[in-house]
């Protein structure tokens, strides 16, 4: 029988304050196989780890149970300590008597009983633990970045500048993302495009970077270090090698559609370059609205193109790439104002959203930076900004704070005043959240120097009243209901994951949270890694964030990729689900349920085999297998049954003795 050592941590008073350590030690010593039980004030400290190591050597222990905090904190610590004195790390298990016992109970006798049962169940588990070795696989040192906004650009540049090849996939006809639409950036008021376009150019010219615009992820297979990705390059209907960006085609195109880049405040043609600094600066044809495709008419662009670059016959192309790591920088969108019925529901023409106002402020925008209202083109003299339009609303909107709106609205009001000197900006808010370097000062500057009037209260209703937009709100500081007959209203809608994030996450088999944002492994300590290994997160697709934060996260994601690429092999957790060949009937049920394509049916042998590097150890196959042949390493049915028995207080029956 295995010689097992049990160690009880006091965790100061976190555990010892509630549990009767002496009784635990005394009882634990009577468990079959337990040859040594020790306690220590802080087991995770250096002396604590030394104690464990000394006992392993002195008592020739085969396995160790650490009774302390959650395994997500110190399992690696103790496994490493055991490995240093020659024990296989997978012979170390944690009984979580802190989070699952001492922290949540206050009655010492019953809590101690529970802790004893928990430790006993882990002793039962460890008795049947196998010694495992990490699975290794080769590594492709090339990265894929999904999304060509500021986060994707930064991540790609950081990886490429470390010497590795990067492929950037962007859905829109140009890289740049939302940052390209912004007029100025807070809190410094530097021009957004002026600081973004050099990065776009650097990315475009980088010898290690390949950019695929107007493209989407078609398929993904493989695992960390060895992904196979299919990229659908949508037909641009223009040969970008021949095209010289002369612009004759879109001059002659008769179709006018609302421009996505201008948020509907201006028109674009059916063959178009989204904005002057676009990369690539070559047009695509919007086939849904091009007369050639809808009515087999026109063809002006083809006729005028001096280099015969227009090609109506172009087809979507799917290319295959092999990459070792994937950065997902899928970005954000704004909550649709049509959902905000009490705020005009997108029907009052002079109620615009934050990004539309950015375009109005922009010198390159539809009004050349003049604040003209969309309905009649008059200069807006009274502008009301409405914060939390859809954010912080658990009932009808999004429960979370969208984070960027307080600051961009402060900026909007300030820039508005710089352009319309005799105008007045009002901001309705619930709280002003100006956390960030220079942010509070920026917000106060808007009040002090530009006379922005903040009104604490949520707007109840916005409606057309003659040629004015009437805003009904309240000022909770005076307790008065207020109304403002505004020329224009700017909503700050909740930020939401960009359209299609959910589908992308499903294709990539990565996780999203309840609001659809990409999930990180640990909100504090591993904020740039996805739960699925090999995927890294950057930008506002993970949570609402501003440019400095998005850039910092992109750098963090890139450094994780570079760290991965610094080795020559990838190491995978060996806690996978294997196959008991003797009992496997080859029915293939597990093959169908495996979300990672890790299980294959060997048709000759009529047995299932496991591609070990692909298995994430989720256990779906184990639950589905009708014969119990899919057994998770170190969490076999036999182990679980004896753990349950121990938890219920049954006397242990060693399977060894059967």
């Amino acid at each position: 029988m295995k010689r097992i050592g049990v160690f009880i941590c006091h965790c100061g008073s976190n555990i010892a304050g509630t549990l009767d350590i002496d009784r635990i030690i005394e009882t634990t010593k009577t468990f079959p196989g337990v040859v040594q039980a020790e306690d220590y004030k802080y087991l995770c400290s250096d002396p604590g780890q030394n104690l464990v190591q000394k006992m392993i050597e002195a008592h020739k222990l085969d396995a160790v149970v650490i009774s302390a905090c959650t395994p997500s904190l110190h399992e690696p610590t103790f496994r490493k300590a055991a490995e240093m004195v020659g024990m296989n790390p997978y012979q170390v298990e944690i009984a979580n008597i802190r989070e699952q016992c001492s922290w949540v109970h206050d009655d010492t006798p019953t809590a101690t009983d529970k802790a004893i049962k928990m430790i006993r169940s882990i002793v039962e588990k460890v008795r049947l633990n196998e010694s495992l070795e990490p699975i290794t696989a080769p590594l492709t040192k090339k990265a894929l970045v999904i999304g060509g906004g500021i986060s994707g650009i930064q991540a790609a540049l950081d990886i490429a500048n470390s010497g590795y090849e990067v492929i950037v996939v962007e859905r829109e006809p140009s890289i740049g993302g939302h940052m390209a639409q912004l007029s100025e950036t807070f809190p410094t008021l530097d021009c957004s495009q002026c600081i973004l376009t050099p990065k776009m150019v650097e990315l475009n010219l980088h010898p290690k970077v390949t950019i695929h615009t107007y493209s989407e992820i078609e398929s993904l297979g493989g695992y960390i270090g060895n992904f196979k990705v299919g990229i659908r390059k949508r037909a641009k209907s223009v040969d970008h090698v021949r095209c010289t960006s002369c612009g004759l085609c879109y001059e002659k195109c008769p179709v006018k559609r609302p421009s996505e880049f201008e948020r509907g405040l201006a028109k674009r043609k059916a063959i178009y370059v989204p904005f002057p600094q676009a990369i690539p600066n070559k047009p695509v044809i919007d086939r849904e609205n091009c007369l050639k495709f809808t009515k087999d008419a026109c063809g002006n662009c083809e006729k005028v193109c001096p280099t015969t670059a227009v090609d109506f016959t172009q087809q979507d192309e799917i290319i295959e790439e092999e990459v070792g790591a994937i950065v997902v920088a899928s970005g954000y969108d704004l909550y649709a104002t049509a959902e905000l019925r009490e705020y005009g529901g997108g029907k009052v023409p002079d109620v615009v959203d934050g990004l539309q106002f950015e375009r109005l402020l922009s010198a390159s925008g539809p009004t050349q930076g003049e604040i003209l209202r969309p309905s009649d083109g008059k200069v807006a003299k009274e502008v009301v900004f409405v914060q939390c339009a859809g954010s912080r609303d658990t009932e009808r909107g999004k429960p979370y704070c969208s984070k960027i709106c307080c600051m961009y609205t402060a900026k909007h009001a300030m820039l508005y005043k710089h352009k319309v000197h005799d105008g007045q900006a009002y901001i309705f808010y619930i709280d002003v959240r100006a956390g960030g370097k220079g942010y509070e000062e920026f917000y106060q500057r808007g009040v002090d120097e530009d006379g922005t009037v903040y009104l604490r209260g949520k707007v109840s209703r916005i409606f057309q009243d003659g040629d004015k937009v009437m805003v009904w709100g309240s000022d909770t500081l005076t307790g008065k209901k207020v109304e403002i007959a505004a020329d224009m209203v700017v909503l700050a809608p909740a930020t939401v994951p960009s359209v299609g994030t959910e589908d992308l996450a499903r294709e990539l088999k990565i996780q999203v949270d309840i609001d659809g944002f990409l999930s990180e492994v640990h909100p504090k300590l591993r904020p740039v890694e996805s739960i699925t290994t090999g995927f890294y997160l950057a930008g506002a697709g993970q949570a609402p964030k501003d440019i400095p934060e998005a850039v910092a996260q992109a750098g963090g994601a890139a450094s994780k990729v570079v760290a991965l690429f610094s080795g020559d092999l990838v190491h995978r957790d060996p806690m996978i689900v294997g196959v008991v060949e003797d009992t496997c009937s080859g029915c293939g049920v597990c093959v169908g349920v495996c979300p990672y394509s890790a299980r294959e049916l060997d048709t000759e042998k009529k047995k299932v085999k496991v591609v070990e590097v692909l298995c994430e150890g989720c256990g779906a196959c184990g639950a589905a297998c009708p014969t119990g042949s899919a057994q998770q390493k170190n969490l076999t049915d036999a182990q679980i049954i004896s753990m349950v028995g121990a938890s219920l207080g049954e006397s242990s029956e060693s399977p060894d003795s059967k």
Partner: protein
Amino acid sequence: MCPTRVSLSRENVKGDFVQLVNEISGQNVLNCYQCGRCSSGCPLTFAMRLLPNQVIRLVQLGLQEEALETNTIWVCASCLTCHARCPRGVDLAKVMEALRAIGLRPGTHDRIKPEDLPPETLAKLPQQALVSGLRKFTK
């Protein structure tokens, strides 16, 4: 308490009233970010209908009538506890004094103008009377 909607516009939030209060008091009421520290420390709020910060708020919004009709401006004893604690450096006592002065001065125009007084009257007028008169009868 206040069933009617108060209409806000450029005319009141950036109107004469705010400027007048600022001019007389030497303070900038728009500096106030409504933290409420003045009200929480004020020893006389038991007798006030509106808290000191609420009066400042009314001034910020240019709501002259509401600001002048509250008893708060008269209850204020100018003890300066508020000013000593204000994180934005607003001397509320001076603002209250300005509001009292505005309330006292009848009308919105100067009732006496020194340049209109005959030189012989001016020559005979005691200096103190002239200063008091200007204080009371000019806006």
